[in-house]
């Protein structure tokens, strides 16, 4: 299982990196933490001509709090997120999901940017990004642009990032006092890809749900929103009746495929269970 031969460059500046991306086009893969890419290459499933190692690029490892939100540089590792008081305080949904990401050694090297760029639908971050309506910052030959989460995930491992662009940061809105964040996933073993997972962002006041964004992982080719089910929660108290009425709507929002770990019916069932459990959390924290 030795990765086939490839060329390797390590740019020192963003412009140099972008130059390589343009030069090599589809023959290039960006190497950040390598936790997904190296595994795929060792398994012989990817054979790039060149790896562009971006770990030397400056300015991509910061977590900055601004008016807009919390800006996380692309090279921030999972471990850094896990131990960041800023993330714990301002982006609790992201902070909640990090312990579920693989294992310690993977978290030490894997990056947020790498995860969002790969957009594995079974990964935790894409669902969180979608639930929070985070903004993905891309930089290319034509400059910097921000893409809303809703516009970013296009298909299986397919995103709005053009081949000649680099993902440089993701900005998450800061959690408001009225918001409750619930992340949960069902895995056969700790750190595995989930059978089904839910990143849920609620806004609750006066004992009633004012807003809800429910983003599922492992339920499609991308993270999947459940807008109908979310709509069914509007203006309702988080009760068993609310859950029972709203969960029926999930079938409108979700059409998973069966895979090695779950049938279609199994996944839909688990989606309902996680939905109910997340809404019940609101009853506890309200």
């Amino acid at each position, binding site marked *: *299982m*030795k990765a*086939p*031969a490839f060329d390797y460059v390590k740019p020192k500046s963003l412009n140099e990196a972008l130059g390589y991306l343009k030069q090599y086009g589809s023959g290039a893969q960006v190497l950040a933490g390598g936790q997904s890419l190296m595994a795929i290459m060792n*398994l012989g499933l990817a054979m790039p001509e060149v790896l562009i190692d971006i770990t030397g690029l400056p300015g991509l490892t910061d977590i900055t709090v601004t008016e807009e939100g919390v800006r996380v540089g692309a090279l921030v590792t999972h471990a850094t997120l896990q131990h960041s008081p800023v993330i714990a305080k301002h982006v609790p949904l992201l902070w909640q999901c990090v312990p579920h990401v693989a294992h310690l050694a993977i978290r030490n090297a894997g990056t947020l940017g790498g995860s969002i760029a790969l957009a594995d639908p079974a990964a935790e971050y894409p669902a969180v990004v979608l639930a929070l309506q985070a903004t993905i910052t891309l930089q290319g030959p034509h400059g910097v642009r921000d893409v809303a989460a809703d516009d970013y995930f296009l298909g299986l491992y397919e995103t709005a990032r053009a081949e000649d662009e680099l993902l440089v940061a993701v900005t998450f809105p800061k959690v408001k006092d009225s918001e409750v964040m619930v992340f949960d996933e*069902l895995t*056969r*073993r*700790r*750190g*595995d*890809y989930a*059978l089904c997972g839910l990143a849920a962002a609620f806004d609750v006041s006066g004992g009633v749900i004012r807003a809800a964004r429910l983003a599922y992982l492992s339920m499609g080719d991308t993270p999947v929103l459940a807008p109908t089910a979310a709509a069914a929660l509007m203006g309702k108290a988080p009760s068993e009746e609310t859950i029972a009425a709203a969960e029926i709507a999930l079938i409108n929002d979700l059409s998973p495929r069966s895979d*090695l770990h*779950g*049938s279609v*019916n*199994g996944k839909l*069932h*688990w989606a309902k*269970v996680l939905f109910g459990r997340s809404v019940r959390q609101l009853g506890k924290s309200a």
Partner: protein
Amino acid sequence: MNARMELPATTHDTTQVANGYIGKSSPRTGSKRLLQGRGAYIDDMRLPRLSHVVFVRSPHAHALIKSIDLSEVRKQTGVIGAFTGSEIAEYCTPWVGVLGHLKGIKSAPQHAVAIDRACWQGEPVAAIVGQTRRQAEDALQFVKIEYELLPVIVEMADALKGDYVIHPELGDNICFQRELKTDDFDETFAQADVIVEKTYTFARHTGVTNEPRAVLADYQPADHSLTVYQATQAPHMMQDIMSRHLGIPESQVRIVCKDVGGSFGIKVHVYPDEMATAALSVMLKRPVKFMADRIESFLSDIHAREHIATVRMACTKDGDILGFDLDDLTGIGPYSVYPRTSGIEGNQVVNLTGGPYKHKAYRAKLQVVFTNKNVTCQYRAVGHPIAVALTEGIVDEGARAIGMDPAAFRRRNLIADDAYPYTFPSGLKFEKLSHHQCLDKLMALMDYDGLRAEQAALREKGIYRGIGLAAMIEVTNPSPAFYGVGGARISAQDGATLRLDPGGMLNVLVSVTEQGQGTEAVFAQIAATMVGVSLENVRVITGDTAVTPYGGGTWASRGAGIGGEAVLQAAKALKVNILAVAAAVLEMDAAQLDVSGNAVVDKLTGVVRMPLSEVGRVAYFRPDTLPMDFQSELTVTRHYTPREYGFTFTNGIQASYVEVDPETGFVKLLKHWCVEDCGTILNPMLVDEQLRGGVVQGLGGALLEECLYSPEGQMLNGSMADYLVPMAFEMPDIEIAHVCTPTKTSELGAKGAGEAGTAGAPGAVMNAVNDALQPLNGNVVEQPITPERVLVALGKI
């Protein structure tokens, strides 16, 4: 029973020698280097001109090989050669995996590298030898093979139906079948008050040793000799097989085992790619190494345990078991594996079903069928996990049907502790077992009544916990009845050579091998005890056919019991010889002397008369000072073969406590218990750790592990990400206790313990899950018990 944090009693000082090291939890000091990264596994070895072989493996489950063109491969950088099956066949003859005592077993000849036809996805079809593994792998893309696809048999039912026969010359797809029926069977079942019936399905799964299979073959053309460094459990067996199939005289073949990174039966079989590696070394006259990578491992390490078994149990309305009825269908690969055959696992299921229970009526039917999936063969606990799960499952069904507590039902029906020797309906003879003592101990250890009360209280709150029991018998210390009688050149006899070195230390050579279970440590304990030296003065060497006595190696939980007895006898004999030298030197009667604490001592007073180093000095360097007609013999070899019983059975009972989430179908393992009677315990810590490791391996099969195949015979989950093995977070703490019934077939009295944990765990867990689901009318009959299967059982999906 180990309290969690309590270290087992250890021993370091020489005063322990008087009491003996046997029964002490001495740490394996020989494993210190493994903790320092100084292990010596096959892949760590370097030899001059070492080359590496990579196998081209069939991507198809069944296909004719129309043509192979390796011309472009041979031009690639670093490629030393590229070879087809025909070329390798000139150096390695084919084999057939059949034995005479499995009546009617049949299989087709198998080559090291397939010649005309590939019969499973992953079968080697060509070999590329390179300077480095990397370069050989790079060359794979230049291989040109033309295949013609053939029909694929994946389902056992299709194999049995026989519309398509994989090996037409065999007539059908049945490798082996067996039927037996006791005379009273028909009447018993016709008249029984209660008959319960279930069909249980077990998914095929595999060993997933941490160190993949590895072999390094080094042929020496000058004297037509071959040294093979191999991660194998049975080096002498491999010596015989390499000799016969490569045409090299037996004593010119040397098999050397280095450190082995886990085996569990996976590394006791003959693999075509390993034979090909040796053949290539002979052909190329230089060392060739092969290590399976993880993807190859999933496709080519033996799989095991694919069964669909319908079992019925008859009992009286008062709860007396009258008999069992078994119909077992098991699917192997396209070849029966050599030399132990792929019929043994099913044969064991027939032999062992109903094992712990009193009954006379038994009918069994076994069919072992070929499929175009990976080959299967013996894997830790061989057949026992199946036999125990279906027996214990149907016993629980019977208890439920009658309305009796499962523990009480077992109490009523387990063979009495004084009923021995006992002959079982399948013909097996038990020397002496202790089912009732074990059950008593388990009930106390787990606080059965307390758990039942807790279970009931939690059910009120909508929490569903289950308790599952699994009584078991376990095959250990086999006699030649297992393989030898069938014509296999597999030794049931092992030997130990003990040598007192001049400095007073012991050198111990044993034909049993080490894969981490601690056989070497245990042999050191026995040798030290029986000779009278301290443990740190003993050095043990195993795993070298040129150096140790001839023997069988490690399998069927025989290492400690058989190898240990050989060590014991040799140690006793060596002590006699040591005392003879001392008596000659001291001009005393040997009967007045003993060996203790590394010295010859006065037997009555314990006063030291001469240190062993002095015995050594005189015997080796100053024999001129000894009587003319005296020859010291400070090297002694003894062998041991189990003879009286076909197998020395052990018994035990396990319990599992689980919580099932009826919403998600997830099963949480709360706790596990195992009470085991393996006779004399040589090292309690090592035995308990064998049991724990075995239990967790069984838990894997029960809840997580399955080899999934597509209808086209492609393995779908052959990576560590998709094939799920037990990891630490989901596993429970396991409490162990023992009953001790030594075997009288040896002085040591030790039975085997290596496989018992795996034998009982799946049955215990399945029963626990079904106990948890009972109030919800759920029942699972399929392993692994996945969340999906639980949800289906509950009618939720």
